[in-house]
């Protein structure tokens, strides 16, 4: 079946359309979204195995040959990210069934989630720079709806900022693509890479590279383009926040990875050093935010920014080891951030507040929840057997080898701040004297805990089984470090 590549995009798209018709039947919507997302996950795992066996897969849509039509390309990196995305979305949908509220569910909530999945999976899979823009927009439009759905005052205020920032960055994206097209005369990513290699990246292409960095930095929250993120992500309810925090910024990081390893690798002294410096400042800014707040949502939101900084630093080195570390870390980070957001969502449900000072003593009543939260915290900080460790280790080692001592040291120190910030949640929320929370008995704590626990379990397996994952990650690295693998698979020369 040559169309296997399109299934992780097509299944959610089709589901979203069907969900439009059955908007009144909430129970049926829940069942259909869970079943179809399971289908998406299965399709992506099958595709993952195919890529593992046969190398990079590509599909020329409409049967037009490679540089002329739109090509979908699934190398190991994209399919790993697609699989992770499908898994996270599945868990978030299960979580939503008991937490988002019928009011929102009646307003096309599940349909929009499926459209978001279409956008993210599409952005990871496409092999055409303008098609990437289109999938970005599919993703962003869905996120606009998700950020404002429910229509509370804070959501309305923050959605205006969010939409404004993203419209501006999308406009810059179009301008950047227009510049690129006027220089190389093609939009197919493999073909662009080939043409840039022919002319050897003159200064104008470096300018385009920086433009792309601004665009993807705005989407992925890199210093100084991150200032919209803490406020906007604070507004929507927790399941939506979990989707945003684990998926949206990572699409920006993925795009930087793709463009900076496939297109603009000829003049690294300027572009990659710039990315490295910005990454270090991003980490520092994130650390300051993460330790400054006493609000659980804010703390985790700033942790997103730290992770983006670490990933960007890994990309900026562009050695085989740093890329391997970055890929290890990006998958870990997506899973663990989703788990963490779902967990603090349960804390907020129980206590009815997101202020850490008003919580306490949760471990007395919910020991299993408490210890799984601690496990998530250790995973996030990168304590050795858990999933945060191998990625960060490789990034730091690559940094030391390349002589980027400041960056490597910042990454190491940032782990300390990350650990401090999440342990602060654990010590103040779970330990200390128990308090009375009105209405906590009505909350479906164990139902909500289950999907979060699935994610934690996956991340633990991912961390402990790092040895098994290593060859798969290495395969993903090869296509990124040697653009010829990617180009040959697409242009079939």
């Amino acid at each position: 079946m040559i169309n296997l590549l399109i299934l992780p995009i097509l299944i959610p798209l089709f589901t979203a359309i069907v969900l439009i018709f059955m908007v009144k039947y909430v129970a049926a919507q829940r069942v259909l979204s869970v079943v179809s997302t399971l289908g998406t996950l299965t399709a992506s795992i099958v595709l993952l195995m195919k890529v593992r066996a046969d190398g990079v897969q590509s599909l020329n849509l409409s049967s037009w040959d490679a540089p002329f039509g739109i090509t979908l390309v699934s190398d190991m990196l994209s399919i790993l990210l697609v699989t992770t995305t499908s898994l996270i979305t599945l868990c978030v949908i299960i979580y939503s069934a008991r937490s988002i509220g019928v009011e929102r569910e009646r307003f096309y909530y599940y349909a929009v989630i499926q459209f978001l999945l279409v956008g993210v999976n599409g952005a990871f899979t496409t092999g055409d720079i303008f098609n990437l823009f289109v999938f970005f927009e599919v993703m962003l439009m869905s996120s606009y709806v998700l950020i404002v759905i429910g229509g509370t005052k804070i959501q309305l205020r923050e959605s205006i900022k969010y939409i404004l920032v993203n419209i501006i960055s999308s406009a810059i994206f179009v301008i950047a693509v227009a510049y690129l097209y006027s220089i190389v005369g093609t939009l197919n990513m493999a073909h662009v890479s080939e043409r840039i290699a022919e002319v050897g990246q003159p200064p104008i292409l470096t300018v385009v590279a920086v433009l792309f960095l601004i665009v993807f930095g705005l989407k992925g929250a890199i210093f100084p383009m991150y200032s919209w993120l803490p406020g906007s992500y604070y507004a929507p309810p927790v399941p939506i926040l979990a989707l945003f925090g684990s998926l949206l910024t990572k699409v920006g990081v993925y795009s930087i990875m793709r463009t900076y390893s496939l297109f603009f690798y000829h003049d690294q002294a300027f572009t990659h050093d710039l990315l490295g410096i910005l990454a270090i400042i991003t980490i520092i800014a994130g650390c300051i935010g993460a330790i400054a707040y006493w609000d659980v949502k804010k703390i985790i939101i700033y942790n997103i920014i730290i992770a983006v900084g670490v990933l960007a630093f890994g990309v900026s080195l562009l050695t085989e080891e740093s890329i391997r570390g970055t890929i290890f870390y990006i998958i870990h980070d997506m899973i663990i951030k989703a788990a963490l957001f779902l967990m603090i969502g349960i804390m907020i449900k129980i206590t009815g507040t997101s202020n850490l000072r008003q919580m306490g003593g949760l471990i007395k009543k919910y020991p299993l929840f408490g210890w799984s939260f601690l496990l998530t915290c250790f995973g996030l900080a990168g304590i050795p057997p858990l999933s945060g460790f191998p990625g960060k280790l490789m990034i730091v080692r690559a940094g030391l080898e390349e002589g980027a001592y400041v960056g490597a040291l910042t990454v190491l120190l940032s782990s300390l701040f990350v650990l401090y910030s999440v342990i602060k949640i654990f010590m103040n929320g779970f330990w200390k004297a128990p308090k009375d929370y009105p209405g906590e008995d009505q909350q479906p704590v164990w139902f909500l805990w289950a999907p979060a626990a699935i994610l934690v379990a996956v991340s633990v397996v991912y961390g402990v089984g790092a040895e098994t994952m290593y060859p798969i990650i290495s395969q993903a690295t090869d296509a990124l470090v040697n653009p010829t693998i990617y180009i040959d698979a697409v242009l079939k020369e």
Partner: protein
Amino acid sequence: MRTNDVILQTVSKIVFFIIILFSIHLFFAGHYNPGGGFIGGLLTSGAIVLLLLAYDIKTVAKGFPINYITLIGIGLLFAVGTSAGALLFNVPFLTHAYDYFYLPLLGKTSLHTAVLFDTGVYLVVIGVTMTIIQTIGESE
């Protein structure tokens, strides 16, 4: 005192049909001449908006008892269904087919599955435009 819009309403009734015909013409012209699903759909909704201006929302809803959000869904089904039809023949997604047919009255005509895709675009554009206009018009 309520003003009498008899001239506006009478003219709208006639002009409505002319606009609809023109929009259908544009829709079918799309393959060989400027036009297509997007502009065709926009013009069709333009015609309905003209009726909305001349009458009120209730009267127009009685004339067109359509749920425009469902119309968006149907349009999307058309577009995705046509593209996904390629999966049945094991050719890449979005691959279209065409052939020549001898139709009564029209004679030799080329029929292309891309028209079905365009029909999807046409319906979605009408659905989206009318949903936006009606939602804004109904909210107090």
